[in-house]
């Protein structure tokens, strides 16, 4: 049965009615109209649905809305803006990373917390941090260029 939930997303509080087992992904996309994140697998295998919950990346496709509680959710839409971009967004544009672009939500949101917590990472650390995320177009080399560029920008 549907229940009411209060969700804090990108700094705003929203009230939604949904089944408690509804994955957060569908609430964000269909009820709140936030088109990122994306549905990729529904199995936490690809990362396309990644959002931040209290500053940590989670896979929203397997996270029931009933488990969010008072947690603060951030989506790609709030990572940065064209006027005030996150360094990763700047780097992605400079390096022209995406091809189809459907996967980039996962890479950006995962890399954002990694670079926040790891200054001057090695190449191996970057790869390990991003391991498991999927990109089907094969933009991996460009992704690494961009993340390294962003790491340099973030000092």
């Amino acid at each position, binding site marked *: 049965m549907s229940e009411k939930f209060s969700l804090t997303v990108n700094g705003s509080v929203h009230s939604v009615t*949904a089944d408690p087992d509804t994955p957060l992904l569908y609430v964000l*996309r269909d009820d709140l109209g936030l088109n*990122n994140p994306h549905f*990729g697998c529904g199995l936490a*295998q690809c990362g396309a649905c990644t959002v931040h919950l209290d500053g940590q990346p989670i896979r929203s496709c397997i996270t029931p809305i009933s488990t969010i509680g008072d947690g603060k959710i951030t989506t790609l839409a709030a990572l940065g803006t064209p006027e005030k971009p996150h360094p990763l967004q700047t780097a992605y544009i400079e390096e022209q990373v*995406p091809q189809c672009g459907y996967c980039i939500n996962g890479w950006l949101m995962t890399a954002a917390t990694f670079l926040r917590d790891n200054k001057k990472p090695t190449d191996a650390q970057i790869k390990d941090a991003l391991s498991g995320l999927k990109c089907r177009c094969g933009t991996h*080399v460009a992704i690494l260029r961009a993340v390294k560029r962003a790491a340099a920008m973030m000092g």
Partner: protein
Amino acid sequence: MTRMEKSANFSRRALLRTGGALVVSIGAPMSFDFARADDAAMSAAVKPALTPDQLSSYIAVNADGTISAFFGKMDMGQGLFVAVGQIVAEELDVPFDRVNVFMGDTATSVNQGGASGSTGLQEGGKQMRVAAAEARRVLVAMAADKLGVPAEQLSVNGGVVQSNTEMAKSVSYADLIGGRYFNVHLDWNGKFGNPLYAPGKAQPKDPRTHTIVGQPLKRQDVAPKVFAQQDFCTDIKVPGMVHGRMIRPAIAGAVPVKVDDSAIKDIPSARVVWNQGFLGVVADKEWDAIKASQQLKVEWSEAKPPFPNQTALYDHIRNAPVRKRQVEGKEAGNIEDAFKTAARVIQAEYEWPYQSHASMGPACSVVEIKDGHVTCWSGTQKSHFVRAGIAAILQMPEDNVHVIWTPGPGSYGRNDADDAAMDAAVLAKAIGKPVRVQYMRNQGTGWDPKGPASVHQVRAALDASGNVIAYDFLSKAFSRVDVDTNGSKPYDTLAGQLLGADLKSGDGFGIPAESYAFANKRTAWEVIPPLLDRGSPLRTSHLRDPVGPQIHFASESFMDEVAAAMNMDAVEFRLRYVKDPRDIAVIRAAAQKAAWQTRPSPRKDQTGDKVSGRGIAYAQRNGTRVAMIAEVDIDRRSGKIWVRKFTVAHDCGQIINPDGLRMTIEGNVVQGISRTLWEEVKFDNKNVTSVDWLSYPILDITETPEQIDVVLINHPEIAPSGAGEPSSRPVAAAIANAVFDATGVRIRRVPFAPDYVKAALS
């Protein structure tokens, strides 16, 4: 904002701006006296019919001086629209940022074939080039008339036509025609799709004068994507829309015989749509539709497990009846006689598995049927063909169907997008509401059309001096067009097949594309019937560079085997037999860039478990040439291969955008490595068992090459050929040849997964 909205707004604005008297074109030849009338007739207030023989079908000059280019193909992520915009801007002499390219909307573009066979520039760009050149010619003629200056004395700069002698005499494109439409007839060749060609009277520019074409301009869609402002087809929402999910059988080929919806009674708004083999559910909320699809109780027909066990796949192919045999290309000499005289025969057999598009997201489509008109949003590669398919399955006139291409979650050929569009159309008609269908992951990987599995038998005859005197290459495989490359016919889609359409499985494969000159040469293919003829998760169609990776894995591995048997260096061997000068140039360029050391393979200077090697492979593809060198590290204990470095030399004629080209090649290489090392559709006798990223693994970022060097060979004097796929095809052979160089062991079956390699090495 969706592309559709942009496009429609443009049309509405254009309509509001116009409203002058209707100008009717006179088809008869004009004398000089009628020049003014001719110019007036070159534009019209009402847009001429959207037909390939009208300039307005490709180019419009808007009142604000911007240019709209209407393109009947679409970009799958390689930045094609940037290159097309560059071509249009170049020919029209307007700044690049003034051109907007609208792609693949059936209401604004003619059928140029969609995304197909790397022809975006080769065919699509060629047409946009002549259309833009003709637009410039017409605009200059109109300016000549308006300014009273002969056209020869006019030049165009930034969209302003100016007298070469009197600076004051100038007029902008916008003032000449802005907001009205070209009313100019083109010399259309009568063809639709990739071969569509409709030039005007104008000659395109001499490539030596290009200033916009050839520049590394950036894509305008990257920023919207990284700022979460770009809508994919998965993001389309229309009022009253419900969510649909499809239900597929556990045993392929089974059809529902009893559907019990009591199990979904507690799910609000859930409804079942069942017709013959077609079974789906809809619900107002997406999660409800998913739950309903999982909870619905379905009794399926008794179906005999249709597939062999996976281990028997290649034996099945070898033993299967041949449905069609084709010798392609130029058959040289007499193969059988030559083999009889051979001093030595080398032969080998190679195997390639079924592979899945496994697009990043499963396909999605939204279909709305309103007042007898259908609107479909789809990430298809071929919107005009999907339009025909929807019209056929809904039994409506094509004119009443509008397909709006919207970027999808990745596409590399005939993936599941066209099936999703048809499923959405059938559901929307059945329930009388707009329906959004997105497949689940297990359907995206498990039920998309597959790249065909194949076996390749190759042999070469050597004379006593070690010269190759005969070469015989045969592929035996599932067809590349068991279902066709587009969804224009219901029988080529799951929905059509499940609703009982008469089947029509096509025959097609291919041959190696190279210029090895052997005195006796035969290249042929044989196609076998599909394992299951209707509603099969192993139906086969086009997956990036259709059949190219399979064929060239075999042919270019084999060339290495011959070179090794002759104790020859692999580059030297190729240069000895390859005859095309551009082929030779890419091979030399790759070898030079990679600092190739001339020596035979395998290396004999390595001991221990960690070994390294290098390998080369090369191929042509419809005019493009590519040579690539893989450098690999192998751990003999684990069988794990790391492709450390790739060097690519690429010649696709004139380069329109070098940065876009470079990124396209990088994507091909990485995806090609993934297909070579990891990708194999697994199945048991009942169904496909590759249903997610664990059961269909692809390359992980930890396995990415540390370096991909790309050498671009530019030939401005040669019309551009394709780049979307050619650099996919030699990847597997380059890696196989490098593995042989490192280990002395020849891997003849893809994928080179660690367990398989480990077993091969021990």
